[in-house]
């Protein structure tokens, strides 16, 4: 069965190259359901029974003289369910987003195929192979958009990531002489530690962890939304999947703690994660391009996951997984919503948008729900995840990490409101637009469902996560369907929900006590009448929204990280320009090189 699924995926990739847009979208949609079907079939190892086709849980494929070991594990099942839920929705969304089939579908399916491979990989070569395949398929999807900076920066960072990972793989391989995860024994020595750190940094590139994040804002803001939804929702999770794999499934985190007696890289990872969350949040609300804002928001939200991994306690890891799960969905929805808005208005700048909510109420509602999850408003699953992380930080007494993380959480309100106000509310600049097409709405709705479910039942999510972590030997935290308990405090989602509903009663009574009249937004306190000359003036106060903070904070954020990378680039350029002066163009010089070379080789060999 599994081989049939793989074959069908490959076949679909080929077919979608050649068929028209509609057919390609339909094929892509149905094919993208396949991994999900397989995952549901494998859900039996979680104790659920949805369908049973009896798809085998492991398989070895021999190609080119090497064997690819594939098998499903609880951890990869969990990551799989969040990543592969995105694909059908994205395909659905793209149905009305694209006018023609110019390479989106095949490469998207290729990305899906390689994500499938990454999650099933049971040896390092397979992991790396699919990892690279995903890198280049997403590279081509970025390259499609013909933006120079995005093309270069993504390929360079992908290569960097690949090399860091392969360096780790080689170090582990030279120690264990095997590529299989099951045959790797980590021992606390320098090489292993370097390997683990190298791999973590490699995966951190894709997970957009500071300071390796610089590609993300550029790429996110220069690519198509359906694809960016995958980048932010799926690809970054695969980066964290890699980190989970090497830190906890293989006990890399423990090894590092054993090797370093004082400050272990785990702690540094937590600090980097927290700083990433904080700095990205501050930068996020200085952005005017919605895609850049969401990109920085992604970097910030993903930073929390790194904090969880760095702390490494049972609470923290569960929180990190939960945060990853939420982020996959709400960030995908937000990017899709931004795409839907852009599809109707053709604008990206927040200061030019505004008032979209009245014309696209469903899009707004869906985006609002995701923003609530993003801002971790209580009773959303976003809160439960962050709560776990905060608890973990307090419990581990990380006095540096905890406040930074918390203030980043507050900062999330600020940019959330920026999105809500700038894009959806405020002055109505778009009288003529319509609600997004049905397929887009359906796509967003599907993705928002898990958020709604886990609002009331955080326990179910925790069930899933504790099973996912079971093979890493991490016990589950005490919880019921509605409540989570830690040694520090407890959180009862249903109590909050019921009280909120109860508290809504008096509010509702007040609301219903007197009738109200709905007026146009221009009919306001400032002016009953607008001179006809200024009839079309924008009443949108979203330009330079957080100017005061910007004025204060900007000096501290300059130069940006990207400037350092540009500095490296310039340094290399100087090196290149200097070194290639060797090629003077005169054969006399070349003859001298030849003579020197000859004498050097001769001298070296005879002297030795």
């Amino acid at each position, binding site marked *: 069965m599994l081989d049939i699924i793989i074959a069908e995926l490959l076949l679909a990739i080929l077919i979608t190259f050649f068929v028209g847009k509609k057919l390609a979208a339909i094929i892509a949609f149905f094919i993208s359901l396949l991994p999900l079907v397989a995952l549901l079939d494998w859900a039996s190892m979680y104790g659920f029974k949805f369908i049973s086709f009896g798809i085998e849980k492991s398989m070895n494929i021999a190609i080119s003289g090497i064997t690819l070991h594939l098998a499903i594990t609880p951890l990869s099942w969990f990551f799989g369910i969040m990543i592969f839920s995105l694909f059908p929705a994205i395909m659905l969304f793209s149905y009305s987003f694209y006018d023609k089939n110019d390479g989106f579908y095949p490469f998207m399916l290729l990305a899906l195929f390689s994500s499938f491979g990454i999650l099933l990989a049971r040896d390092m070569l397979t992991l790396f192979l699919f990892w690279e395949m995903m890198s280049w398929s997403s590279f081509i999807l970025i390259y499609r958009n013909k933006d120079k900076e995005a093309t270069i920066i993504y390929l360079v960072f992908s290569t960097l990531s690949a090399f860091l990972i392969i360096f780790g793989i080689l170090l582990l391989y030279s120690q264990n002489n095997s590529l299989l995860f099951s045959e790797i024994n980590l021992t606390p020595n320098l090489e292993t530690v370097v390997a683990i750190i190298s791999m973590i940094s490699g995966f951190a590139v894709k997970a957009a962890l500071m300071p390796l994040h610089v590609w993300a804002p550029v790429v996110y803001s220069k690519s198509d939304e359906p694809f960016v939804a995958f980048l932010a929702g799926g690809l970054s999770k695969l980066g964290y999947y890699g980190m989970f794999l090497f830190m906890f499934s293989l006990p890399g985190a423990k090894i590092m703690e054993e090797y370093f007696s004082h400050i272990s890289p785990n702690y540094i990872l937590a600090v980097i994660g927290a700083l990433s969350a904080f700095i990205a949040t501050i930068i996020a609300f200085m952005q005017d391009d919605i895609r850049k804002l969401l990109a920085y928001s992604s970097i910030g939200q993903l930073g929390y996951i790194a904090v969880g991994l760095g702390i490494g306690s049972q609470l923290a890891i569960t929180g990190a997984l939960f945060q990853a799960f939420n982020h996959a969905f709400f960030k995908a929805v937000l990017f899709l919503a931004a795409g839907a808005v852009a599809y109707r208005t053709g604008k990206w700048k927040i200061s030019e948008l505004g008032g979209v909510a009245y014309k696209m109420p469903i899009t707004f509602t869906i985006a609002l729900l995701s923003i609530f999850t993003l801002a971790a408003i209580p009773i959303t699953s976003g809160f439960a995840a962050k709560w776990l992380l905060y608890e973990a930080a307090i419990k581990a007494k990380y006095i540096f990490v905890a406040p930074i993380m918390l203030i980043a959480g507050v900062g999330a309100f600020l940019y959330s409101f920026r999105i809500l106000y700038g894009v959806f509310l405020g002055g109505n600049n778009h009288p003529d637009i319509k609600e997004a097409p049905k397929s887009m709405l359906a796509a967003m709705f599907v993705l928002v469902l898990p958020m709604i479910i886990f609002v009331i039942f955080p326990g179910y999510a925790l069930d899933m996560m504790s099973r996912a972590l079971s093979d890493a030997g991490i016990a589950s935290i005490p919880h019921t369907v509605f409540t989570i308990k830690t040694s520090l405090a407890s959180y009862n989602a249903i109590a909050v929900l019921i009280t909120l509903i109860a508290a809504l009663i008096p509010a509702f009574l007040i609301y219903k006590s007197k009738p109200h009249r709905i007026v146009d937004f221009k009919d306001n306190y400032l002016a009953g009448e607008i001179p006809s000359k200024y009839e079309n003036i924008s009443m949108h106060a979203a330009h330079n929204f957080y100017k005061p903070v910007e004025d204060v904070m900007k000096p501290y954020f300059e130069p940006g990280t990207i400037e350092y990378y540009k500095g490296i680039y310039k340094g290399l350029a100087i090196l290149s320009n200097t070194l290639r002066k060797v090629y*003077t163009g*005169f054969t*006399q010089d070349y003859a*001298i090189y030849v003579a020197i070379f000859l004498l050097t080789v001769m001298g070296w060999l005879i002297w030795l």
Partner: protein
Amino acid sequence: MNGVIMASYFTVASLLSIGLYGVMTKRNLMKIFISLSIMDTGVNLMLITIGYLPGGTAPIENANFAKYVDPLPQALVLTAIVIGVSVTALALVLLIKYHSKKGTLEYKGGMKW
């Protein structure tokens, strides 16, 4: 070692050095190719010297097989000379082309870096 062979090796070394010096210092393309030819000659001489036996005769099947020089290097040298000639011929063609384009055989720099 035989004095002749010594002298021969010395000549080989001098020819090679002279040729190399020419290639390394001259800007005139014709002079460079002449230097290359000199080097070529040096190597050819080297090959012949290797095969040389003091007092040996030409390796022609003869009634008295007293002592003759190694025939193989001589064959090699023949081949090498032929190659050298063809290379020189091509070089001259290219030089004519170069001269017709630039009007000079002095190389003053062109494509670089």
